[in-house]
């Protein structure tokens, strides 16, 4: 299978999902206008503002925050020459500047990358992954992480998080207004409203946060699939990453930090397990990812 085609297919899919989120925002605003009249729209800037404030600060300083949250230690070329060489090789293949490299003391094999742009990127490996993987596998993992940097996935997930956050806030405001203060306004504005439209807008307001969450997770999964394909575009070696994912699949230890705040950034999700429904996971199932890489290798 051609990685260039897979790359554009995955990009298109995640763009479509982002448009889906924009559409959802439109529908929620329609619901607001239907239910509360023009005054309802007044809360939109507040919800968006709060969501922006809470997400974009952490987006801007993501490289520093994540290092603190995961306890990752920055290493230099002198500390770990081989790891530094490995990352530099992949960066040359990707045409990216060499990021800060960090190591997390943790026995579970895992890795992540973050940062608002390639110039502020940081890539981190657990001591576990450095122990269990050989050079070719680590190169695959590094390429997957650098693919996130190249595809600006920190930005994509910040946009998705902001939209989902704003929708959750909006829906929360509205439901409160309905319960506590909505009565008067409804008398003023909505006497001539179609009752079906009122019910529909109520349903929209109740379901919007869940829909936004599902869209956000779907975007996360698509970007993971895209990062796998982009990694192959960098190394032209699907085998390395496929073997690395097989090592992760065989390993049962899980990163200790189960903080949901940073779950989505690891190469293998520390939260998703076989009991989590596919709709609610941040990553596609390892088996699916391995199958795609196998198809790129030409073995089925």
């Amino acid at each position, binding site marked *: 299978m051609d990685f260039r085609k897979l790359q554009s297919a995955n990009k298109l899919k995640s763009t479509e999902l982002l448009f889906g989120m924009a559409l959802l925002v439109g529908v929620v605003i329609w619901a607001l206008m239907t239910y509360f009249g023009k005054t309802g729209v007044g809360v939109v800037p507040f919800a968006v503002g709060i969501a922006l404030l809470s997400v974009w600060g952490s987006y801007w300083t993501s490289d520093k925050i994540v290092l603190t949250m995961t306890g990752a230690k920055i290493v230099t070329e002198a500390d770990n*020459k081989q790891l530094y060489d490995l990352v530099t090789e992949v960066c*040359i*293949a990707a*045409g990216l500047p060499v990021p800060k490299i960090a190591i997390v003391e943790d026995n579970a094999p895992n890795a992540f990358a973050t940062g608002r742009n390639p110039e502020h990127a940081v890539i981190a490996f657990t001591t576990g992954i450095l122990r269990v993987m050989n050079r070719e596998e680590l190169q695959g993992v590094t390429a997957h992480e650098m693919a996130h940097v190249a595809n600006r996935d920190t930005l994509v997930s910040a946009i998705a998080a902001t939209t989902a956050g704003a929708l959750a806030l909006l829906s929360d405001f509205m439901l409160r207004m309905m319960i506590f203060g909505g009565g008067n306004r409804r008398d003023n504005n909505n006497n001539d409203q179609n009752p079906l439209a009122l019910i529909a807008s109520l349903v929209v307001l109740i379901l919007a946060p869940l829909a936004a969450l599902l869209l956000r997770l779907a975007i996360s999964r698509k970007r993971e699939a895209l990062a796998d394909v982009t990694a192959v575009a960098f190394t032209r070696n699907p085998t390395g990453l496929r073997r690395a994912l097989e090592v992760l699949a065989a390993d049962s230890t899980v990163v200790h930090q189960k903080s949901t705040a940073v779950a989505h950034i690891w190469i293998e999700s520390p939260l998703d397990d076989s009991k989590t429904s596919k709709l609610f996971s941040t990553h596609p199932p390892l088996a699916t990812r391995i199958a795609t890489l196998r198809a790129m290798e030409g073995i089925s």
Partner: protein
Amino acid sequence: MKVIVLVIAILLILALYAIMSRNRLVRANISVDEAFAQIDTQLKRRSDLIPNLVETVKGYAAHESSTFEAVIAARAKATTATTVADVAAADGQLTQALRGLLAVTENYPDLKASTNFLALQEELSSTENKVSFARQFYNDNVRTLNSAIKTFPSSLFVKSAGVTARPFYEVDDPQDRKAPQVKF
């Protein structure tokens, strides 16, 4: 009145589109130059490693002089090459010569155990990877530029942007070409 505004708007959009297409060509051309500079940097790194490597191997295998000469001759050639084709040819020869040198070291267990040699070997194999990724990145950028030159609408601005189709970096590696031998 409305017609004039519409015409102006369309012209503006077309002009913007033209500028973007032309800029795309210029940018692609710069990327090719940068990618070639990266190959050069990595080849230079490899070339700098060679004297040290040859000295280390000589200490254990002094009589393998023909192998050393091949490496040194290929290195000298590589430092003078400038065009893409010449650099690629010299790069291919040096890669071959180094492969020969590393094959020779297989016969000297003392050499293979020396820490100096191990460090050099890691450095050399990493540099080989860097060279080959730099080649791949260069060829990807040439591919982007050459297809922008051939496809509409950027093809209209090839002259004004002052870009030309660039050659791919092709290393002539006998190991890739070798046909499997058939014995009866």
